[in-house]
């Protein structure tokens, strides 16, 4: 089956249809000044990127990684990579060296596109990345070496046109999305160009934008929501949209919502919970606004936030559920479907969701079990890159097992219960305990460690690190700061534990596996249950 290249469907097609000068993004900078970008701007710039990569010898099917903060250049690079039929891999600019090594090593990226202030992180690990041929720096005018090149200089010498195949096999790899597991290294979910059909269909079915709407998705493009519904969906459907360079800032966000007259806002529960901490008078300015609908994704939208959001913004708040692996929204609340606060809604058209028991048999309504999807939807990931066994392990027969526990009520609404594994969903980011533990164990003063997630009113789950100190080491604020900084710079700021708990021994079973369930129960003051397997 053939589909349009995502870059063609999102950009080139519109330029061919006379939309070259049509503004697609109102880009709001940190100081709230705005720059408008048209389809033609991104078409020309992404053509140049594709020419640069061709000049550097990048072939289709090879991975080019983008390690940049959200920026117009990130978007141009993304589409340029796809035009070449190479595989894009966007990484959070907050990732530390260890996290970068895991991702760049697994993907065998040939090129990393980054900025001057982030280069040092890649240079620190480059000897462990034999596949890496070039680092392209977006904000330097001159090449530093044959390895460290100025993208700006290369772009200046490139043509703004690029010939490429618009139609290709739907199974052609397009992008990698890294996600954390409960054990082992992060896994790169591989998506193909065929993903675009589900993204467009779901965007139209759930977001239901009209011609005069202004759409704002707050997610960073390194998060799958930011890529699929912050870039691909609005670009491909001609949806007038906003991007904001900054991070969370209540005043700025409210200013953007009101002054720019945003009508459809795709946000996250943690952002709403952070807003809830503000004095209500902060929202006086937003009492009258242009918002028609709010959508939320990343963690469960608990009824308290739902009601708060609806009251403060005067509009419906629609929660939805999907994952890096699913490639598009799977289960959703949406206009025309009565909202049950706290529920993730119902599967969208064409998606079949089930609750399965431990034997992978469907459960009747009301019973908790494994949230699973009937496999084969178009945007389903095609593998975990270079980890086929891990990919296969996510399926049981015809079912994709999501890793979430949930239940379905008698009306067909799905309700999130928890993760079925040890992955920690903190502020919408999935953090694998193994990544945090590995980094902490690199610190001499730490003898052993176990990491768990615990309930948190803002973050959904907070990261708790149980540590055993090395001999003759005392816990103090200096050591705690060392641990926090180490995690921040080696893994990511989102992986910094909220709390460190010093204990004498990490509870493990007889085969050496950490008993996280026991630690969680002890931390939360609950009965740890059966501890007969504890060593």
């Amino acid at each position: 089956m053939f589909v349009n290249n995502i870059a063609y469907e999102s950009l080139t097609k519109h330029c061919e249809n006379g939309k070259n000068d049509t503004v697609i993004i109102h880009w709001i900078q940190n100081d709230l000044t705005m720059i408008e970008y048209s389809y033609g701007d991104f078409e020309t710039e992404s053509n140049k990127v594709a020419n640069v990569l061709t000049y550097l010898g990048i072939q289709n099917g090879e991975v080019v990684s983008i390690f940049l903060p959200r920026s117009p250049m990130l978007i141009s690079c993304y589409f340029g990579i796809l035009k070449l039929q190479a595989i894009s891999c966007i990484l959070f600019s907050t990732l530390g060296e260890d996290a970068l090594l895991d991702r760049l090593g697994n993907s065998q990226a040939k090129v990393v596109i980054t900025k001057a202030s982030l280069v040092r992180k890649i240079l620190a690990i480059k000897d462990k990345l034999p596949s890496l041929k070039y680092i392209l720096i977006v904000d330097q005018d001159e090449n530093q070496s044959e390895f460290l090149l100025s993208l700006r200089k290369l772009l200046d010498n490139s043509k703004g046109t690029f010939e490429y195949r618009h139609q290709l096999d739907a199974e052609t790899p397009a992008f990698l999305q890294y996600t954390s597991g409960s054990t082992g290294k992060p896994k790169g979910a591989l998506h193909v160009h065929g993903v675009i059909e589900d993204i467009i269909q779901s965007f139209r079915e759930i977001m239901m934008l009209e011609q005069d709407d202004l759409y704002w998705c707050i997610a960073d493009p390194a998060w799958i929501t930011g890529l699929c519904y912050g870039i691909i969906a609005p670009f491909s459907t001609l949806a007038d949209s906003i991007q904001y360079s900054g991070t969370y800032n209540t005043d700025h966000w409210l200013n953007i919502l009101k002054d720019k007259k945003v009508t459809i806002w795709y946000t996250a529960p943690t952002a709403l919970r952070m807003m809830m901490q503000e004095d209500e008078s902060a929202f006086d300015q937003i009492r009258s606004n242009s918002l028609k609908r709010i959508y939320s994704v990343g963690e469960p939208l608990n009824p308290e936030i739902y009601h708060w959001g609806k009251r403060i913004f005067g509009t419906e708040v629609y929660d939805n559920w999907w994952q890096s692996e699913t490639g598009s929204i799977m289960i959703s609340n949406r206009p025309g479907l009565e909202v049950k606060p706290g529920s993730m809604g119902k599967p969208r058209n064409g998606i079949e969701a089930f609750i399965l028991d431990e034997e992978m048999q469907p459960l009747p309504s009301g019973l908790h079990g494994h949230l699973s999807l009937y496999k084969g939807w178009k945007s389903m990931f095609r593998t975990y890159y270079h980890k086929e066994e891990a990919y296969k392990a996510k399926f049981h027969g015809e079912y994709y097992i999501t890793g979430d526990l949930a239940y379905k009520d008698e009306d067909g609404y799905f309700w999130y219960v928890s993760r079925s594994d040890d992955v920690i969903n903190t502020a919408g980011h999935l953090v694998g305990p193994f990544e945090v533990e590995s980094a902490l164990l690199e610190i001499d003063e730490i003898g052993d460690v176990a990491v768990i997630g615990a309930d948190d009113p803002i973050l959904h789950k907070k990261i708790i690190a149980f540590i055993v100190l090395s001999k003759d080491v005392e816990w103090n604020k200096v050591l705690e700061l060392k641990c926090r900084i180490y995690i921040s710079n080696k893994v990511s700021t989102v992986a910094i534990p909220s709390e460190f708990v010093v204990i004498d021994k990490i509870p493990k079973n007889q085969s050496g596996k950490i008993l996280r369930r026991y630690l969680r129960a002890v931390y939360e003051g609950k009965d740890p249950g059966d501890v007969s397997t504890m060593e």
Partner: protein
Amino acid sequence: MDLNEKLTGVFREVFDDQSIVLSEEMTADDVDAWDSLSHINLIIAIELTFEIEFKQSEIQNFANVGQLKQSIESKLLNHN
């Protein structure tokens, strides 16, 4: 070592970036790894380095490095 030099050292350690040069107008937007989570690391590091304490209400209210420095100076004065 003056305050600026000492504070520069703190920033470089917290954000693992020896190229950081502080300016009065610098904000979190100017430093790649400076987000709301690493901001807590920065505050703890400043408290430990300068032996001062910030109130909870102060922590998120610095508009830029200049204001942060003013706050540190004022606490050091009161301290002495």
